[in-house]
């Protein structure tokens, strides 16, 4: 009988100890506050490759933050949601992240349309939304507000850079443009034409070509473009579209028949590898291998080790967006939206791309945009900017008064 009780007590004792052992880590975690941050991105559909790069950049940012003690001594938890390029889905995820998960920050998504809708929700609930992708000017102009922050270039800054690059081709007299037929593509070309007309009024734009986003076969465009006999092509095709275009244009010797200035984000250059036409010029938001800073070199190596591939522009700008939030929270000594916004107004922040400053009136950063000739680099296995020149995009901005006037009209 005694032996029976000894055995029973031992079993119960071991069980209690086991339970304590299992629950202790959770008890300690719940005692320490966790700061939740959200990334809404378009992992389903045509934007998957950029969205995945964005998610990988966010993952590395949060891992590095936690390795350095988190934000204000609290662990950071990343919540990733897939908006699948759909406005309703993006809004529903934003609502869930803000109201149920109580996130302190939202970054993303790829689609400017989805971002616009989420932006209104963030304003209502006083949660900062940092756009680390770069996109439509509406987000910082008529639809802008205190809780929307632009840490990469908008379409005006980007197209201004391309115009500056194109203006350097002194022997060019005629040109054509090529852009995907949706809001972003249209804004890029409009911005380019505005800036280029001032820089080079002597150049005639012969035609604007508008293939649909996701066009599979550019052959009819290529032959029509060659038939125009322009001196220069300005292209803002990206991702799989640019790869398709290059592969189909090469047998027609298009790249030997005209100068080319293209949107040269890394994911499509990585896809093209050695097949990318050398000698063309590119412009991009964050060409990682060509930005020579110790922070960038350390980021590139850490990213390659963690993800298994080289980072793209989107990986860099998303990483920066999360680090900007950390900087603001530490400056404000708080992660609450109003305090964070107050601390960040007009702030100057160190990023992988160097130091950037947010303009106080509209939270638009003076992020540089890069141009340069594209040259194959065997280390990376794709064409990179050699050398990259950072262009100051601030001349492309509207003045604060003009922005406020637009916002007043929009109300």
């Amino acid at each position, binding site marked *: 009988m005694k032996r029976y009780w000894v055995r029973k007590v031992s079993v119960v004792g071991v069980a209690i100890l086991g339970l304590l052992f299992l629950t202790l880590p959770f008890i300690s975690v719940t005692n320490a506050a966790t700061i939740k941050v959200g990334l809404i991105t378009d992992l389903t559909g045509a934007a998957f*490759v950029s969205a995945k790069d964005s998610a990988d950049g966010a993952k590395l940012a949060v891992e590095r933050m936690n390795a350095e003690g988190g934000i204000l001594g609290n662990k950071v938890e990343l919540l990733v949601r897939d908006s699948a390029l759909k406005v309703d889905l993006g809004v529903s995820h934003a609502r869930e992240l803000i109201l149920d998960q109580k996130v302190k920050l939202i970054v993303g998504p790829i689609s400017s349309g989805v971002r616009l809708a989420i932006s209104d929700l963030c304003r209502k609930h006083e949660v900062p939304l940092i756009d680390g992708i770069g996109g439509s000017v509406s987000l910082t102009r008529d639809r802008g507000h205190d809780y929307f922050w632009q840490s990469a270039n908008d379409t005006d800054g980007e197209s201004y850079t391309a115009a500056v690059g194109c203006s350097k081709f002194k022997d060019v007299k005629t040109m054509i443009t090529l852009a995907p037929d949706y809001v972003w593509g249209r804004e890029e070309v409009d911005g380019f034409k505005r800036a280029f007309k001032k820089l080079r009024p002597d150049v005639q734009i012969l035609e604007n070509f508008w293939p649909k986003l996701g066009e599979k076969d550019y052959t009819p465009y290529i032959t029509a473009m060659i038939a125009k006999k322009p001196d220069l092509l300005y292209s803002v095709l990206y991702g799989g579209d640019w790869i398709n275009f290059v592969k189909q244009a090469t047998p027609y010797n298009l790249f030997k028949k005209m100068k080319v200035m293209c949107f040269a984000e890394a994911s499509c250059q990585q*896809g093209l590898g050695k097949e990318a036409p050398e000698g063309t010029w590119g412009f991009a938001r964050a060409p990682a291998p060509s930005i020579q800073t110790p922070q960038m070199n350390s980021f590139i190596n850490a990213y390659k080790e963690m993800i298994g591939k080289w980072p793209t522009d989107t990986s860099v700008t998303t990483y920066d967006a999360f680090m900007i939030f950390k900087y603001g929270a530490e400056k404000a000594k708080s992660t609450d939206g109003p305090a964070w916004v107050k601390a960040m107004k007009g702030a100057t922040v160190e990023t992988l791309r160097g130091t950037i400053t947010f303009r106080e009136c509209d939270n638009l950063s003076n992020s540089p945009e890069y141009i340069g000739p594209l040259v194959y680099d065997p280390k990376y296995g794709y064409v990179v900017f050699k050398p990259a020149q950072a262009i100051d995009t601030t001349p492309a901005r509207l003045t604060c008064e003009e922005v406020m006037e637009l916002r007043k009209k929009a109300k």
Partner: protein
Amino acid sequence: MTFVTFVNQFISGATYGLVLYMMALGLTLIFGVMSIVNLAHPSLYMLGAFLGYFIWFSLKGYFFSFWLSVLLVGLVVACAGIILELFLRPLREHTEQILFTYAFMYIIADLVKMFWGGRYYTLPRPPGLDGSIIVDGITLPTYNLFIIGVSLLFALLLWLLLSKTKLGKIIRAAVFDREMVAMLGIRLPWLFTLVFGIGAFLAGAAGLLAAPMGSIGVGMDAEIMVPVFVVCIIGGMGSFLGALIASLIIGEVYAFGILVLPQMAMAFMFVVVVVILIIRPQGILGKS
């Protein structure tokens, strides 16, 4: 417009149309015989491109490795198509079939993401087909000519299969009267599985054949979804010749639209689609 520009643009239009036709062939076959609108067809095409990339690179160095890859990819994707058909078999309603193939589309997309996602892949043109022929100022990329030839060859082989063989006669009889064919002792389910397998084979082979002309990446299925269905619908669902005529009309209208008024090229194409559907709602060679 000079003569050279006209011919260049005409050939561009034909290439555009016939690449679409190659992608649409399997879909037309499956609908024509089984009356199944297979929304997963573009996914099988994408699967073919991804599998093709890895199979071709694994076989590199062997003689005719590209052609062997096309065959192997076609067979693997045909197996995937057969699995899809086995699941589809109990579903008799069109809405059920559409929903099921739609779900399958997402399953394939997620599998592709899991195994290969996160970057774009590109295939070089196969040796011997990587140059161009220039005739009187008209540039003709050899791979484009090859694709035109392959599309027409596939169409011819399918026509021969359906018109000149015993199997083709059985398939055509099954389209006309399923019950009668079943009463003659022919196992219809296996016949349909075979047809679905051939359709999937064509989708997979088209995926690899079209890959050297562009990129391989997640989302390439969605890119071809609309144009491929447009070709099938305005050609008349199930009609090979109708799909061929439709693809050529679309290709040429699009090509000359780009030359004349680029900002309206897409609109021109869909105006033609609307006009055809108003005049012949069943499609150019479709049966009402």
